[in-house]
């Protein structure tokens, strides 16, 4: 028996990570670059004191967008404490920043609730990015960009000032009418039953009428917030069409993502939900005159994309294997000794005629080594080393406390309960100073060329520490962008109750010095023309000004790459709108194709595409000329 036990022990022994490491490095410069923010945490009513660290564990978000149109991506960072202002960092054009919050008038200040997330998008198609701030227990705020560096609060007039518990939002144009719509993901329910009167009242966690505000189970909870899809009416107003288009589930949504998952031209949805199954919705626009969303369910009637673990924290979409279809990265929880069956999920899109939309998904995370992300939060696809392969950076860590006294036992005992027994926060054991998956380091999963020519899945190697990412903060939101305009993607990480990190990519030469035999790039800013719709069948389809949903495919002598313009994706995250392509050594660009949401397609041949190399390129819909900088 001893031999059998020893054999098993040895077989499962962790192996030193082998493999080919790639060249990638980052330098943390938040302080030097003037974009340091120490996130202030939310604090709720004292009635929740026993689990306050848990309930105040979210709110650090970052959104990247070029709000002033100077070609350099700016940053908007949230703070969640009472009276604490969010911050707008204007990029000076060289990757250093200045705080222009007061001048811009976008601080919010959390007078009653707490800021949780923010996204940039041009809702009025006037050529500059507006800002939508998602909050807990306070009306969400839509700031209209006046174009002079200042903003005006138009939330109430626009009708997007929901009072709820939002943790997620994305801009999308689900009906392709050339107007940006807004999808908001809410966490807690906005209404609860007042046990003293039996009436349904506002769920105010600062002035609670009850402590029965928690999820009813850890796996099948549908007592969370109602998600909202605001349809842009084009006259400065929005309409709540959630029920009309099929969004009725009241789960605990933490992240929302939109992208054309089945390549039918219409944006689909993936909602990452805590304490319940994720939701995967296909847009019916290709087959129905009025687009709506159809929830994809498995043969047993359960929503989701596959074998789910019910703690979805983040969703991001990207074509990780360069097959022309978007894949999905969902973060989750993995903690040795306490929770080992879960982990982050990398859903690889594959042909499946039996699945709705003709695409099925396989979770290849464990197979390719991207599953162990700790207690995961934000996670983003990006090509950090300009080799043409999408990498993944994901942050983690829940509550940092006394490392010698953790809360895992308590939480596991609460998980082992039947329905409704976990709903009352007062029943939860005291968390105090206990640690719950704190002190975790972010994971940088760099994709490497597979050594097997016949390999059908990508290969990754984890390189955070080697790349210089060493912080142990509880990371939440990630914004990826080329902030210093050197051709290499940088990262800004919003950490919960801790200083933010600005990781400047120092992997290679600045673009001006790069040659063909180096790793090179093309970065594209797409500008749609909403006033030039295309007639497709009986419909008029148009692109939004910021081209959300537009798709770019680059063909090279090494294969193809595809990127889609996102309207904000990832937990508490928004990366820059520009799409970024990296090219490995001696890769030549043969063509570049832009598919606009209007249905218009523009092709750029090899000579034109090659002129884009090592440049930030601006392409306007329908205009075959482009500008570079």
């Amino acid at each position, binding site marked *: 028996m001893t031999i059998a036990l020893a054999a098993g022990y040895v077989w499962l022994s962790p192996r030193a990570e082998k493999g080919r490491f790639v060249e990638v490095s980052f330098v943390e410069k938040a302080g030097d670059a003037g974009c340091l923010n120490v996130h202030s945490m939310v604090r709720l009513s004292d009635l929740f004191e026993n689990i306050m660290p848990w309930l105040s564990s979210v709110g650090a978000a970052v959104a990247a967008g070029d709000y002033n149109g100077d070609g350099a991506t700016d940053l908007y960072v949230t703070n969640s404490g009472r009276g604490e202002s969010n911050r707008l960092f204007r990029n000076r054009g060289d990757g250093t920043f200045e705080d222009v919050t007061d001048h811009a008038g976008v601080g919010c200040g959390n007078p009653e609730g707490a800021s949780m997330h923010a996204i940039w998008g041009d809702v009025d198609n006037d050529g500059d990015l507006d800002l939508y701030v998602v909050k807990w227990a306070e009306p969400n705020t839509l700031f209209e960009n006046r174009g002079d560096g200042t903003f005006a609060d138009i939330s109430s007039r626009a009708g997007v000032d929901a009072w709820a518990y939002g943790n997620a939002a994305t801009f999308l144009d689900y009906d392709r009418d050339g107007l940006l719509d807004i999808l908001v993901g809410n966490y807690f329910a906005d209404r609860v039953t007042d046990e003293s009167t039996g009436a349904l009242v506002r769920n105010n966690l600062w002035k609670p009428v009850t402590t029965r505000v928690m999820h009813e189970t850890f796996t099948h909870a549908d007592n969370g917030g109602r998600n909202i899809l605001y349809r842009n009416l084009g006259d400065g107003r929005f309409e709540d069409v959630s029920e009309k288009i099929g969004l009725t589930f009241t789960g605990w949504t933490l992240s929302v993502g939109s992208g054309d998952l089945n390549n039918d031209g219409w944006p689909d949805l993936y909602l990452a939900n805590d304490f319940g199954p994720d939701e995967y919705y296909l847009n019916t626009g290709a087959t129905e005159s009025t687009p709506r969303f159809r929830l994809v369910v498995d043969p047993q009637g359960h929503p989701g994309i596959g*074998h789910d673990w019910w703690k979805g924290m983040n969703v991001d979409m990207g074509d990780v294997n360069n097959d022309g279809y978007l894949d999905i990265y969902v973060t989750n929880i993995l903690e040795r000794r*306490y929770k080992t*069956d879960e982990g982050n999920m990398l859903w690889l899109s594959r042909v499946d005629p039996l699945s709705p939309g003709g695409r099925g998904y396989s979770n290849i995370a464990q197979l390719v080594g991207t599953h162990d992300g700790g207690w995961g939060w934000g996670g983003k696809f990006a090509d950090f080393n300009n080799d043409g392969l999408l990498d993944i950076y994901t942050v983690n860590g829940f509550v940092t406390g006394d490392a010698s006294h953790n809360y895992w036992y*308590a939480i596991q*005992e609460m998980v*082992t309960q039947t329905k409704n027994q976990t709903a009352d926060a007062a*029943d939860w054991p005291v968390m105090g100073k206990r640690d719950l998956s704190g002190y975790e380091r972010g994971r940088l999963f760099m994709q490497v060329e597979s050594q097997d020519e016949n390999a059908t899945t990508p290969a990754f190697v984890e390189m955070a520490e080697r790349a210089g990412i060493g912080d142990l903060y509880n990371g939440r939101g990630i914004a990826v962008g080329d902030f210093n305009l050197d051709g290499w993607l940088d990262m800004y990480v919003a950490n919960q109750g801790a200083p933010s990190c600005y990781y400047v990519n120092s992997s290679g030469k600045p673009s001006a010095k790069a040659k063909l035999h180096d790793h090179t790039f093309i970065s594209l800013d797409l500008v749609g023309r909403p006033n030039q719709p295309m007639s497709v069948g009986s419909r008029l389809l148009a692109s939004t000004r910021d081209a959300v949903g537009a798709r770019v495919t680059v063909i090279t002598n090494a294969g193809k790459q595809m990127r889609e313009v996102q309207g904000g994706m990832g937990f508490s995250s928004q990366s820059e709108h520009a799409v970024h392509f990296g090219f490995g050594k001696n890769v030549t660009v043969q063509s570049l194709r832009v598919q606009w949401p209007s249905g218009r397609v523009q092709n750029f041949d090899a000579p034109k595409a090659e002129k884009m190399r090592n440049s930030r390129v601006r392409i306007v819909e329908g205009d075959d000329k482009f500008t570079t900088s």
Partner: protein
Amino acid sequence: MDKTIQSARSPFRIIIPSWRDPRVMMSVALTLWTVLGQTTFYFNRDLFQLGLAVGVACLLDMVLAGVVMRQLILPLSAYQTALSIGLLLESYDWRLFVIAPAWGVLSKYLIRNSKQHFFNPSNFALVMALLFTHGRATIAPGSQWGADYRVSVVIAVIGLVMMVRVKRLGLVFAWVGGYVFMSMLRMAGGQGGAVFTLGPMTGAEFALFTFSMLPDPKASPPTARGRLWWGFSIAVMDGVMRYYEMRYSMFYALFIHTAILPIMRWVAEKAGLQEADPWKLVTLSIFGRRPVQTNS
């Protein structure tokens, strides 16, 4: 009583279990639990891992029975072991579902006392997996199984009926009663409220342990009163470990208790006693009267 067929030309005896064999009912119950869980109650277990565990355990049990005992068996025990492991064990690593069932089945053949095993194979496998797989194994918490209280009620009723059939009702009551008693003490000690301490009883982890692992005839005392003390003692140990926030405590408590069984047998043998005698002596020393006649 199992039916044994011995062919003159075959070196193997074929063992066919009787329908009255408690293992048959337990196997049916676990199968039903698994099938319903996967199809109706959204248990969300990985079918590949479940299948792997069943395949490894059954195959290994049949091979070992053939080699060691020259028997051709229907591997009901291994099947139960595998299902328990497949339902309870969780890991992202498929190798756990080869190793753990193998360890469980091997323990039946390699760790024996008085010509019989004394560890419950599922319990042995789970504890070894928790201890010796570099933190890759954990046990699935109860609400993974649907979190529906009606399921818990049905499981409890079916479980109690089975306990009557296998004559382990007293053991189960002693364990559950002891658990409640220790929960009260933990509450009094300030560890938490009723939901926190008693709530886990409604989960499937508790149910599987109580109705599948604990009542193993080979891993529990031979007398009825002995089993009462046995169940209560496990509950006390479990409660103490829970007070000190040791997760998976009931599995460890059972493991430690069963590990003591051969020591008790050895002591009894050295003292010239029958196996049941130590349990009678425990009763006698505490109550000062003759123990009741047991049915074992």
